[in-house]
């Protein structure tokens, strides 16, 4: 997976340099830069329309910024298509769920690791040789690591679209993890979840970030300020495409501009704490 040199903990894994992105006359990102270090949870916050999801889309290749550079593991990936970036190790979840509704949870998660399967059509049709070995290995990986981590044993054979929203969000995270990513882009993983589900999701994010087995770097877009301030190492604040501040949560929460941009959301922050 790792085509370029290994990035060490604490070194820059993902770098965005002076990104400009406009849709017609709407300037969605206005010279935004971001450095995500390996092992961090780096959050991006901002009011609605601040350009958070646009930034995610730029990182994973759904959008191509008009100006600026994106580096991943030291390699410039501007022109790469999304699937190529996935191969490099960028996984993501979506704000609005993008699961395969008619497939089971297990199949959805398996799709995430599809990219790593090497066996051919022929052995695949008969489930022999390499396919068999690969499938068994994948099964072990998905069952023992992902399903166990996300505590979704009870629903593994259920069809995805029949599940409650909170569980679908978990399945999406599972699928992103099956890619074995180095960095995972989480687009509002807590949106629409109840308090208990938010707590679970925060726990899962901390697990994949800290647990020796995963050590996945996370880029988190989130509205829930309580969660963001609790679990992030660094926070980038956007407002209408402009960067307000990028720093540790303690610094960010004291910044007058941030407080202003978030005026009125303070209550939310307090209530969720």
């Amino acid at each position, binding site marked *: 997976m790792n085509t370029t040199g290994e990035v060490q903990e604490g070194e820059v894994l993902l770098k965005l340099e002076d990104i400009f992105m406009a849709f017609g006359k709407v300037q969605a990102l206005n010279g935004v830069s971001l450095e995500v270090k390996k092992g961090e949870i780096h959050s991006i916050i901002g009011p609605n329309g601040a350009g958070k999801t646009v930034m995610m889309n730029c990182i994973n290749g759904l959008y191509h910024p008009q100006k600026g550079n994106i580096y991943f593991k030291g390699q410039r990936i501007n022109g790469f298509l999304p699937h190529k970036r996935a191969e490099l190790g960028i996984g993501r979840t979506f704000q609005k769920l993008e699961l395969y509704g008619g497939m089971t949870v297990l199949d959805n998660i398996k799709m995430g690791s599809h990219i790593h399967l090497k066996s051919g059509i022929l052995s695949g049709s008969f489930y022999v040789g390499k396919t068999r070995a690969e499938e068994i290995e994948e*099964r*072990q990986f998905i*069952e*023992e690591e992902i*399903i*166990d*981590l996300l*505590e979704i*044993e*009870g629903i*593994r054979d259920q069809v995805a679209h029949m599940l409650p929203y909170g569980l679908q969000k978990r399945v999406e995270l599972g699928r992103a993890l099956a890619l074995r990513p180095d960095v995972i882009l989480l687009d509002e993983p807590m949106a629409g979840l109840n308090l*208990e589900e938010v707590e679970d999701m925060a*726990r899962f994010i901390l*697990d994949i970030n*800290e*647990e*020796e087995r995963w050590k996945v770097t996370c880029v988190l877009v989130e509205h829930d300020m309580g969660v963001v301030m609790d679990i992030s190492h660094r926070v980038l604040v956007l407002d209408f495409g402009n960067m307000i501040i990028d720093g540790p949560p303690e610094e960010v929460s004291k910044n007058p501009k941030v407080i202003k941009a978030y005026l009125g959301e303070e209550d939310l922050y307090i209530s969720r704490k």
Partner: protein
Amino acid sequence: MDEEKIEISKDLTIPQLFYRQCKRYGSGKVAMREKEFGIWRPFTWQDYFDNVKYLSLGMVSLGLKKGDKVAMIGDNRPEGVWAEMAAMCAGAIPVWLFQDCMMEEVKYIVDHSDSRFFVGETQEEVDKALAIMPRCPKLEYIIWDDPKGMRRYNQEFLMSIKKTQELGRKLDQKEPGLFEKLINEGHGEDICLLFYTSGTTALPKGALLTHYNMLSMGQNLMAVDPCYDTDDFVSYLPFAWIGEQMMSISCGLQIGYTLNFPEEPETAQHNIREIGPHVMFAAPRLYEGLTRQVQVKYLDSTWIKRKAYEVATKIGYYVADLKFEKKPIPWYWKVLNYFANIILQKKLKDHLGMSRLRHAYTGGAAMGPDHFRFFHALGVNLKQIYGQTEIAGISVVHMDGDIKFDTVGTPIPETEVKITEDGEIISKSPSVFQGYYKMEEETKKTLKDGWLYSGDTGFIDEDGHLVVFDRSKDVMVLNDGRPFAPQYLESRLKFSPYVQDAWVIGDKLPHVTAVMCIDYSVVGKWADEHKINYTSYPELSQHPEVYNLIQKQIEEANKGLPGPARIYKFVNLFKAFDADDDELTRTSKLRRGFMAQRYKDIVDVLYKDQGNVHLDMTITYEDGRIQPIKTDLRIQEIAM
């Protein structure tokens, strides 16, 4: 397998029995299975032995001594049984807690029992233990078994089961033979378990049970219903419930059947189907849930399937009723029943995981005749059990072929059951407990001359069957002066799939009323089909159409009852009863006294000419948070 008969005597302890069984079966037989990561993983008796041995020695090297208490909490899993057995082998006394216990209950039991060790399953239980530790000065070590989320915990008194077992291995090298010595030091009349009863009224009481209590109970039960070492049993009900201990330890260890542990509590039903156990014992709530599941599926299925179900169950009910009445079954009914079995019962039993079931027991609370007949009509040998924690689980059971659904059966061997002049049920057997831990007053009230005073009222009928009326304090007096058991009516109400719970009121009051809890998923589905919009349980429960639906269910339950015993008014509650709000015990029994206080406003209005009741109260969430709630509930009257 060589069939060496094990003599249960006052000299034999559970660890000694464990030792003999492990040596007898060794690595040639599976002692337990756990479904993990999607696959059933077996543990042989040798694995079982090794795990227990080193865990036990590990705890000994941490300072566990004979008579110490070890608090335990967690889901059903092999590690749970290992920890329990390991503590017993070291001469210590396990104290099980319900896994959904709130912090204060955990604190009370850990502190009251003087526990020095705490064995938890996951981070959640460890967090609970850490939170109560400052207030439980006697607690010294916390042992856990699931490493998930434990990466940042490095206190010295925290230790994984694996690490504890390593300490045990070291001790074994230093002092070989110590484990055997510890086991041989035990005596059958030593205390082996401290069991906190859930109690419908007061604080939990700790019942002290000896090895002999536990083993003699298992022996006597299996004298009635033999089990075999080739049987499978699924262990998924809380270890803190005596019924589970009875099946896994008293019977399981004695006969050597295989214990199977489900993957997660949520997958239990599915896992039961995969295993197809030979014996099962569960509280009525579980059977009620299964019944509801079948009824809901029936409502959902196609016309042809519904007809097949109707015909087959009609035959099933007819044959079951003949059996209940001990009448011979004519050959043509036998033929019909054979076909009913092929088209329906067999498949349904397979779905419920009951294909291989020889005996199914229900106990712990009353179960309605409707549910009872339902299972017999399917050909499931469901029997009532009666007993208490204080008698190591059970004293009375239905014998095969002698089942009356309004009784709890006849006493098991070596057990005497009598009724006092006041109508209280008292019993005497080798399994009667030794007293309550640090509660002499309570012990004196319960244990008199070796007789266990149950606090239940009942009588013995003409066939020698025990009929349990109800908890003495729960028996109601109707307005015509007749005694009446509210549980009877409640269980009839619960036979409707739309009703999750019911609380019947009417003691010394002009008429009988009920507080109803709808089943959210079933009524929700019904509402969808009837194009009724709702957003939440409280809203759905208050919908007039839902009131009418519930009224129909009540009218059905009222049928055949004398006028004064019929429900005259009811209210749909805005939530289901919950143990976290102290409305139920952890074994799902209604705490009537508490409810009468908590819902005093509702009760008052039910006996006034008012249409609405305003409530202003708090509800407790599972994580201990408390939230206020304000709501209006409607009272509906039923025309008689």
